């Protein structure tokens, strides 16, 4: 008798837990009701950018200063100044491929400048600005590797990628026979490659150049096999912020400031 009671009690508790969790999920549908993001930025005098902290050349935390450095950071700083002058302070929050859409939608960040490829799928979830950087997917291998291009990815080869990135999806399409292992971030994926856990690492060439620069015993092979136009993402329905960002991006390009920032980071 006692046993059945305990069982029923536990079953009831777990069902309640499930309903509670499901209920929480409902909140996310209330997007779009909040105040316009652009107005909020002006009111609070700060704009929060979501940037990578683990991606050399684009957004990498410098352990000695604690500052995040890279193309994405310098560009967003210049964009903020172009849009609002010195009035609005740019702030930075770390995002990963996994967290960036969620953090935009719950309002923790205003704009994501984090090596994010513009795709049709993602356009359903967020709004993108114009392309701010044109990258392409490539492969990073140990020097002297048998793998020299995407054609060499056959059954039994292991390709390392990062969870939530377009490159993981692309490689499954372009080399369906190969095994894809996905890691939390680029640092872990590169560590796994160095430890021999896979034959190649795949992501955008711009990011791979950063890794090859860090450890010259690795090289890029086979050129690029996709086009990865990077865009700045904002929460769906904030056309005014998208327009402001596009305008600022254009004037940075016209003034030559954009090239200055780009040449500082990307040498190839």
């Amino acid at each position, binding site marked *: 008798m006692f046993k059945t009671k305990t069982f029923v009690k*536990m079953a009831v508790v777990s069902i309640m837990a499930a309903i509670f*969790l499901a209920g929480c999920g409902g909140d996310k549908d209330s997007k779009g009701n909040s105040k316009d993001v652009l107005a909020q930025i002006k009111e609070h005098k700060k704009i929060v950018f979501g940037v990578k902290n683990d991606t050399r050349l684009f957004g990498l935390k410098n352990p000695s200063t604690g500052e995040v450095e890279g193309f994405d950071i310098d560009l967003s700083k210049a964009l903020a100044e172009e849009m609002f002058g010195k009035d609005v302070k740019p702030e930075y929050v770390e995002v990963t491929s*996994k967290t960036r*859409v969620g953090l935009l939608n719950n309002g923790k960040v205003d704009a994501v400048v984090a090596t994010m490829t513009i795709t049709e*799928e993602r356009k359903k979830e967020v709004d993108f600005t114009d392309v701010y950087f044109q990258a392409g997917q490539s492969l990073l291998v140990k020097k002297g590797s048998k793998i020299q291009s995407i054609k060499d990815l056959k059954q039994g080869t292991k390709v390392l990628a990062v969870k939530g*990135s377009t490159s993981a999806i692309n490689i499954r399409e372009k080399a369906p026979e190969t095994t894809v292992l996905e890691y939390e971030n680029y640092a872990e994926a590169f560590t796994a490659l160095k430890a021999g856990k896979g034959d190649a690492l795949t992501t955008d060439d711009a990011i791979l150049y950063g890794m090859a620069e860090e450890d010259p015993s690795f090289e890029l092979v086979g050129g690029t096999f996709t086009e990865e136009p990077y865009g700045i993402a904002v929460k769906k329905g904030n056309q005014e912020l998208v327009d402001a960002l596009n305008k600022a991006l254009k004037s940075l390009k016209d003034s030559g400031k954009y090239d200055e920032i780009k040449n500082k980071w990307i040498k190839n």
Partner: protein
Amino acid sequence: MLDFSILTTNIDSFLQGLKITIISSLIALLCSFILGTLLAVMRIAPFKTLNWFGTAYVEFIRNIPVLVIVFFTYLSGNFGGMAAGTIGLTIYTAAFIAEAIRAGIMSVPNGQMEAARSTGLSYGQAMRMVILPQAIKIVIPPLGNQFINLVKNSSLLAVVAGGDLMYQGDLISAKTYVTFDTYVFVALFYLVLTIPLSLGVGFLEKRMARSN
């Protein structure tokens, strides 16, 4: 409400993840129980070197985060994610099981060992046939806790591409952008594993109590 299409369209991935989680947890459970019992016996055996080794193991391992141990096993050996994760979990959980079982052994009255030895059993025999069966009965509730923790900790396989339930959840949420609902289903799958385990431990506890 909950988006059940996430569950139905990705059911293969979820089940594959569930399978890996179950296999990894079962292997780690069995191995850590054996290793933990050995360590517990070492810690109380009348040999200084063994005492020292057992204590050093337990103090080192239980004071390192399990995530770090899993990284070490993954990067130091030629293991895949699932094997490295399972080994890491075993090493970690064994330290806690050793402490639980040691407590159980200590709670068996001294007279039991003395009486067993006086009937002519060796120390090892007395330990195996008289002390441990009583000790394990006492420590079933804390062992049950450790095993439930083990199943939950197996979610760390996800960071070393182990292919477990959490890993599949990560990939599904990354693919669909329906993050919250995906993890609700992940949570429910874990509950499917841990609640029967909880009930099983409770049942075993009562059975054992009756035979006393």
